[in-house]
């Protein structure tokens, strides 16, 4: 019953690895997943049999490599036992991958000035998003931020491909507030405080805002109800609802999220 565009569950392989600052970048061969993904999609990976929960990773890049049509780049920030296990994988290692998962970013119908705010490893989907927006004649302003320099992502690549790039280490709130003033649409990917800063600034300026909301996921596939996101208004029926981050998100319209109850 798989729909042609539904997620796939495959045994993939690590093709390449590299360390960039505090992050470990993995290139995965996972046939069929890259071709189906959009900016904002993510994958779930298994980290050994003893850890039952999956680890969710943003799809950073999709590109041909080593004779494979669409490899996936993912960014791992080693924090817990699962992410450390992933960071320790060597080329050739097998890894179970499920994806693409989740609702990706929605693109503007008309050309609009887009502000993209990405924090740390969570900025992973934003360069691909910037590329899509440019194809739609949308001017892009990218703010990359992180608590420290070692966790900034994609600064060099961003400067090569995006006209306006700001880099902020430490608290990004002032930069966000300043940048929102000249945007029509805001896209944000990062920690909850950063997403909220974008949501609040966008609401004050009366512009639309989408947030890529990371919650602690277990199955990442919509089966377990372990990643609740409280919404103030559901898009379909208008009432408050608790939805699942992994299948109803992870990208949400910021104004729908009940940030106080999150």
């Amino acid at each position: 019953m798989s729909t042609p565009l539904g997620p796939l569950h495959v045994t993939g392989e690590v093709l390449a690895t590299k360390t960039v600052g505090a992050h470990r970048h993995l290139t995965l061969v996972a046939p069929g997943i890259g071709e189906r993904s959009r900016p904002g999609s993510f994958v779930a990976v298994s980290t050994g049999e003893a850890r039952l929960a999956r680890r969710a990773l943003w799809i950073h890049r999709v590109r041909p490599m080593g004779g494979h049509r669409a490899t996936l780049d993912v960014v791992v920030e080693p924090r817990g036992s699962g992410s450390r296990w992933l960071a320790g994988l060597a080329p050739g290692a097998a890894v179970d991958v499920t994806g693409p998962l989740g609702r990706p970013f929605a693109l503007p119908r008309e050309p609009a000035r887009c502000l993209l705010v990405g924090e740390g490893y969570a900025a992973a989907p934003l360069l691909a998003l910037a590329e899509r927006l440019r194809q739609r004649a949308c001017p892009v302003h990218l703010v990359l931020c992180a608590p420290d320099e070692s966790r900034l992502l994609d600064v060099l690549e961003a400067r090569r491909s995006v006209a306006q790039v700001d880099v902020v280490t430490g608290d990004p709130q002032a930069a966000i507030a300043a940048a929102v003033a000249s945007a029509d649409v805001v896209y944000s990917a990062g920690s909850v405080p950063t997403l909220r800063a974008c949501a609040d600034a966008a609401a004050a300026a009366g512009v639309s805002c989408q947030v890529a909301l990371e919650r602690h996921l277990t199955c990442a596939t919509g089966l377990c109800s372990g990643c609740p996101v409280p919404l103030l208004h559901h898009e379909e029926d208008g009432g408050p609802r608790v939805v699942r981050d992994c299948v109803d998100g992870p990208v949400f319209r910021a104004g729908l999220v009940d940030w106080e109850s999150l």
Partner: protein
Amino acid sequence: MSGDWPFSGPVLSASGCGGTGRELASYGDLADLGGFVTRSITLHARPGARGERIVESPSGLVNAIGLQNPGVEAFLGEELPALLELGATVVASIAGHSLGEYAEVSRALGRAAGVSALEVNLSAPDASGAGVFDIREPFQAAGVVAACRRDLPGGVLLLAKLRSDASRVVETARAVTEAGADAVVVGNAVPAAMPDGRPGGLSGPAIRPLALRSVSLAVEALPGTPVIACGGIMDPADARAFLDVGARAVQVGSALFHDPTAAHRIAAALAAGGEPR
């Protein structure tokens, strides 16, 4: 038994582990499973627990979902038709805060076209947290089953889902069978605590030996009652171990969070290995 055994194969999905059915159907045809068990449905929608809901534990998961579900009306209006459309043999899991609510939900779902069986959740591990009728004693479990059985049409199987508690499983299974259960499911996640002390349930391979012991005891003590085994089944060998001690079927739960194709893989392997005894 009130009706025929409706399950075409020995592998079902476990309650609360298959989403609405649509999500699981992305990874395999629901018609290829013996049955699809819904998350527990209550009379009215429940938003579920606040705070962290699932944490990893060695070879397991501790969950405190709080029985989030859309309620009877939305289930009947949206989810059941979708499940039937997907070709599932539907087992509706039910729960309630009182005997009256159990009976009312049983009546509503048991009479719905396309529901093959009811699974009465008598073992919510975080009953107090989830606001479920607190079932500690076999007579209380029997009371709920009797209330659910009363208005159930013939042909709808009534399954009672119990705890994998070796010290109580036999008397509880006996009590619910006498009260009208057609089969027992052994068992649910075992009562445990989240890291902050809130009540929750431990599931996964960590509890498989507990479930195997409880299933063995129930099978031995109640030769006339089919036992469906549930608890940490990850692969075909695990499923065979439960079938070998006399379980009639198995449910796959937490394994689906680790690998959404697990139930289908196990079903295919058992089918390829010939009919389970």
